[in-house]
């Protein structure tokens, strides 16, 4: 089956938020804080502009609570007296001419009486830098299994390491944008977003309306990667405030520079490992400390930290594990959801550390992993017993074979000994990714989905899950077709419109296909297809709707207070292998070959699945080698695609994708989540390959030419 909306995307017919016509519409823009922390002492409107032509909104115009409701309520919708990060929204301006509003906004000056900011999330805050609790920790999570201290004393060797990753910008090609207007007393907000019900809940709180008087509608979304999980609520409510005050439709579309400067990025991390191994090269103790830079407000940092710490010990069996995690407040713009959600950071540290340990104790990296990968019956760091039948060692061996891992090492040795300036190396990473929400998250979401039989005999799928390029529309259509024996033209997927669809949860966490797709497959319209649907409508004057609600797989138990138990209903498992070439003249590292082997359960749509893996690998290549946010006083300085360098066609190696299918009993047709997995493995595999190529010991990414030069010249 071809992508359902594919042809619309090839003919220009697909309408994204910026493409929608709006009669009598105003362009909105955001007035932002020039300083990272301090008291707002004034907002001065320049005298060269006729402000009577403009609609201006500040925090006094918020009908409900001045907050962007998420986990907490600490983030204001428009800062009133105090700002906690540069680029924080303070006021809004709208005008019918985009050019006029762009010019006018430059004539607004915000003055701030500064307080001391903190930017280093690894440093102890001074008393006057503390802004949250007693120590700026937005969230702490500890995981304990066995007795780490005793095991470290007994261990034959103890190996320590410290690993860092930087922030990463999503670079969805479609910038953030929203439109809002009021229609018969109902506020309609449409835009580029992943989670319509997040926006709805935030709107109810800040606008003081009930959910019958607000509708959130997703428009075709030009890439998300997590960047359109939480931040769209902010823009949606800004557009709403302007539209309500102006009594006219308002459009807010960020340009690239504003989007990169003001919206969320991946959390920077510092992870410390202290690991005990016995004389046979088996892990006996993993003592892990995880710190994330949360930015200025709580936003999603507690759950990013949660996924990060749960994955921090990797896919390995070890009886004694202690993981201490914290997300720290800094005066940077809040870091947020990004494909992988904390796991890429902790997997980078763990998989680079596995190579460091292997080198220290003199075992090959692949053999060291082979001895420690979880086999069925063993438990993860949270004590979850794995019994899924996946042979993780076989996955690793398959990846080594596909990549000619050992043969290439021999070739690299002879090239590296003789070539004047090129060095090659090959590296691997073994890892896992929990599919769906963490812990009891899916139970609390209690996702609901409806299938309706339309009067013309077609089936309509009503869910809140959205298409952003990953293939939701196609997978849902395929599941209905397979289940009911229909053709794609007999299936329609409803717009994700909170006025019509039930809450099937957000489109995040690799959960849409596995959790919500299962509901599509479970819906009780099973035996009533086209003619029966038509007959129903002829005979009766009532809608035909099938319902499905999430039921957790049996035997899943999670204790949120002790962080023990079944952290996820299931995991994707993978081994990735990267080959790199480093040019010693330019200090440039390039990925020359890539192999991705994974078990994501049954593959429902091979073209879409491979597209997800290849795209994720390339996004992770950028994070590993070129993508670096240059911060100064809490502001991203390189907020352009000219100097924030994502992979281009020149940077992409052949990527061989192999699926080892082990069906998951509780996914649709045996499928597990897969969208985030490919973000986890490439960075450590690449860093391990670079280490081999140049006989160095990189502990941080990105490995830009500047950092590689430092590493080779100064050993750091």
């Amino acid at each position, binding site marked *: 089956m071809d992508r359902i909306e594919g042809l619309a995307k090839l*003919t220009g017919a697909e309408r994204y938020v910026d493409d929608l016509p709006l009669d009598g519409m105003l362009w909105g823009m955001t007035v932002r804080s020039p300083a990272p922390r301090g008291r707002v002492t004034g907002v001065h409107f320049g005298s060269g502009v006729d402000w009577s032509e403009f609609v201006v909104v500040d925090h006094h115009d918020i009908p409900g609570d001045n907050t962007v409701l998420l986990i907490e309520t600490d983030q204001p919708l428009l800062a009133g007296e105090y700002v906690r990060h540069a680029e924080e929204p303070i006021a809004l301006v709208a005008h019918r001419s985009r050019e006029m509003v762009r010019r006018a906004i430059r004539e607004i000056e915000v003055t701030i009486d500064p307080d001391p900011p903190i930017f280093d999330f690894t440093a102890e805050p001074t008393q006057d830098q503390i802004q949250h609790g007693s120590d700026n920790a937005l969230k702490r999570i500890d995981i304990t299994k066995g007795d780490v201290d005793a095991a470290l004393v007994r261990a034959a060797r103890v190996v320590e390491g410290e690993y860092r990753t930087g922030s990463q910008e999503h670079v969805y090609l479609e910038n953030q944008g929203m439109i809002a207007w009021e229609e018969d007393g109902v506020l309609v907000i449409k835009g580029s977003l992943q989670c319509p019900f997040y926006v709805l809940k935030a709107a109810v709180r800040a606008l003081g309306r009930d959910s019958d008087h607000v509708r959130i509608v997703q428009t075709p979304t030009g890439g998300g990667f997590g960047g359109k999980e939480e931040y769209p609520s902010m823009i949606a409510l800004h557009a709403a405030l302007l539209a309500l005050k102006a009594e006219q439709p308002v459009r807010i579309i960020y340009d690239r520079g504003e989007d990169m400067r003001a919206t969320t990025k991946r959390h920077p991390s510092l992870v410390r490992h202290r690991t005990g191994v016995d004389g046979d090269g088996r892990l006996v103790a993993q003592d892990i400390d995880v710190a994330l830079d949360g930015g200025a407000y709580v936003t999603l940092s507690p759950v990013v930290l949660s996924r990060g710490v749960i994955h921090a010990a990797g896919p390995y069996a070890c009886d004694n594990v202690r993981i201490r995690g914290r997300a720290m407040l800094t005066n940077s713009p809040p870091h947020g959801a990004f494909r992988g959600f904390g796991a890429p950071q902790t997997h980078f540290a763990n998989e680079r550390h596995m190579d460091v340990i292997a080198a220290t104790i003199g075992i090959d990296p692949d053999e060291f992993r082979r001895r420690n990968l979880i086999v069925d019956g063993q438990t993860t760091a949270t004590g979850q017993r794995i019994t899924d039948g996946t042979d993780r060692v076989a996955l690793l061996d398959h990846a080594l074979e596909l990549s000619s891992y050992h043969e290439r090492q021999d070739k690299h040795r002879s090239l590296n000994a003789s070539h004047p300036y090129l060095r090659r190396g090959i590296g691997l990473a073994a890892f896992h990714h929990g599919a769906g929400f963490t812990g009891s998250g899916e139970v609390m979401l209690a996702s609901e989905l409806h299938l309706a039989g339309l009067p013309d005999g077609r089936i309509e799928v009503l869910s809140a899950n959205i298409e952003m390029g990953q293939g939701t529309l196609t997978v849902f259509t395929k599941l209905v077709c397979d289940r009911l024996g229909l053709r794609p033209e007999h299936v329609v997927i409803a717009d994700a419109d909170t006025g019509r669809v039930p809450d099937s949860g957000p489109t995040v966490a690799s959960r849409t296909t596995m959790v919500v797709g299962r509901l599509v497959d479970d819906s009780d319209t099973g035996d009533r297809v086209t003619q029966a649907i038509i007959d129903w409508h002829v005979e009766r004057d009532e809608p035909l709707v099938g319902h499905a609600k999430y039921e957790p797989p049996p035997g899943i138990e999670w204790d949120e207070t002790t962080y023990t138990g079944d952290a996820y209903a299931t995991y994707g498992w993978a081994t990735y292998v990267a080959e790199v070439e480093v040019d010693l003249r330019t200090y440039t590292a390039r990925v020359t070959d890539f192999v991705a082997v994974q078990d994501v359960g049954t593959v429902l749509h091979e073209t879409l699945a491979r597209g997800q893996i*290849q795209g994720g690998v390339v996004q992770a290549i950028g994070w590993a080698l070129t993508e670096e946010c240059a911060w100064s006083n809490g502001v991203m300085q390189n907020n352009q695609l000219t100097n924030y360098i994502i992979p281009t066609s020149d940077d992409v190696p052949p990527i061989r994708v192999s699926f080892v299918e082990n069906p998951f009993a509780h996914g649709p047709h045996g499928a597990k989540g897969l969208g985030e997995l490919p973000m986890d493995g490439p960075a450590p595999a690449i860093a391990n390959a670079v280490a081999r190529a140049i006989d160095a010991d990189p502990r941080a990414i990105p490995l830009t030419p500047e950092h590689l030069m430092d590493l080779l010249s100064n050993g750091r």
Partner: protein
Amino acid sequence: MRHLYPVGRLGFMAPPSKAIEAGASVSLELRVNGEPHAVSVPVHKTLLEVLREDIGLTGTKHGCELGECGTCTVLVDGQPVLSCLALPATLEGHDVTTVEGLESADGLHPLQQTFVELGAAQCGYCTPGFVLAAKALLDDNPQPSRADIETALGGNLCRCTGYLKIYEAVELAAARMRGEPGEPTREMLYGAG
């Protein structure tokens, strides 16, 4: 590692014959997808904005408006041009092609077909720019190598696909346009490995 279009090299980017005052409005006739469009716009309004806002062709997308991402690529006399950096005042008498003009009386362009079949469009936002840049390549070189394709598409950024499926779609369209077997191989559909 980025190839930007050599916009300045192209003759049609030469300044208009008579001087135009900054901020003035100009009345122009633009030929877009074979149809004439009379527009009256500020002289500094870009081709991207005029196409989208004055002519109503929204298939051409804003990506960065600084000539960095290739998302707004259109064809001018068959050559790829970044419409966010082009001024309509310099384009009278030239042929502009947008994604809406790819389909002909004979039906879809082979590239449109193969991009759908091989999964080369994911979120779809960069797709119009890619497919137009690819058309310019195939019109000029019916049998491009993988390296030719990489170079020709090097000014277009994609964040979803990892580029490989786009290359495969261009290769398959090229084969079909040459009249060679038009069935995608398993390798093209699912990649090697």
